């Protein structure tokens, strides 16, 4: 009976040992999980963020900051991506524009994804012209930053000045003739006005033509995934 008392304490020790080992194992497992969750893959994230920023701002792939050239982005190769954003060299990359995969390395599956709201632009070339005898101004819509002006006036007419919203952008006392490219503010429509002097019989004649590129843009999501 007394012998049983000694073994009872031994039993209690065994239970304590089991509990202690269990608690330690649980603690180690929890630490494992915490460490796993803390792995944010910062180098992949940096590579993805750099590429997304570059795609939406570089001259090669965008019309201006945030407006992506869809034709260029769709024709990108993996080598182009490395040239645009060196941090992605040697990593698996997948670029999706508007849910459609544009470029993908063969092994890009999981990894870190960065999403950017961008606008996808498609260019539209427009031209307008006016007969100086009837009309001496032309309006350029908002969103156009550059316009090519072509002046062909007849012998008795001289276009001395071209005004953009009353600001002189071209001036030549002897006459503005031929082609010139002029920068405009993009934020509002701009009214181009042609100031004309006549010699001889007083009839103004000649033609002016303007050409510009407008960007039709729609919002889209640019998604860059980088996997090590």
């Amino acid at each position: 009976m007394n012998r049983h008392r000694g073994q009872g304490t031994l039993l209690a020790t065994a239970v304590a040992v089991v509990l202690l080992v269990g608690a330690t194992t649980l603690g180690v497992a929890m630490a494992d999980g915490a460490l796993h969750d803390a792995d944010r893959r910062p180098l992949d994230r940096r590579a993805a963020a750099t590429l997304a920023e570059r795609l939406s701002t570089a001259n090669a792939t965008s019309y201006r900051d945030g407006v992506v050239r869809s034709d260029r982005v769709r024709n990108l190769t993996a080598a182009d991506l490395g040239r645009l954003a060196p941090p992605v060299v040697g990593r698996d990359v997948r670029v999706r524009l508007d849910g459609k995969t544009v470029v993908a390395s063969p092994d890009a599956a999981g990894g870190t994804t960065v999403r950017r709201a961008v606008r996808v632009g498609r260019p539209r070339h427009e031209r307008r012209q006016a007969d100086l005898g009837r009309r001496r101004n032309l309006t350029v819509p908002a969103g156009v930053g550059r316009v090519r002006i072509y002046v062909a006036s007849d012998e008795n007419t001289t276009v001395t000045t071209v005004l953009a919203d009353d600001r002189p952008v071209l001036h030549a006392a002897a006459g503005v003739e031929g082609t010139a490219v002029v920068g405009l503010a993009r934020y509002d429509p701009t009214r181009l006005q042609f100031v004309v002097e006549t010699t001889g019989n007083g009839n103004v004649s000649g033609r002016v033509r303007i050409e510009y590129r407008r960007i039709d843009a729609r919002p889209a999501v640019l998604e860059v995934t980088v996997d090590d």
Partner: protein
Amino acid sequence: MSDERAAASVVGKALESVVLVLLIGVLATMLFGGVLPGYRTAAGAEVADRTLAGAAGRIDRAVPDGDPWGVDRELRVDLPDTIRGRRYELRATGRTLVLDHPAAGIGGRARLDLPAGVRASGTWASDTPAVVRVRGDRDGLRVRLVAGPNAVGVAGANGGGRP
């Protein structure tokens, strides 16, 4: 009979003590011998990755992508003094930033996002203030990692950061 009873008690106590001492020994050996150093290394590797990514980002930000002529700027970079309790080094080798740490399994390399033709050089020790110095002249941009006792934010009026 009474001899036996006393012996049983002593044997029992001795067994308990041996079991407990063995348990503590095994647990301590397991935790300090394998599990804890492994965790310290894993956590250190994660901190090293973040340090590397952060430092590379700061270097990229210090380098303007416009006209290099006349650029003269310094940008301070915050680095953890130690990783896994040890000093470490960040080295720029051309277009790559390398983190060197004495412990195996910690460290790595990251490609810098520099304009074409620009190379970076120099070394940062983790326990001195780290400054990236960018100078530009006719030959282009030079990027150096230097120790800066009196580090400033951004010096020089030339060249704004990247948009």
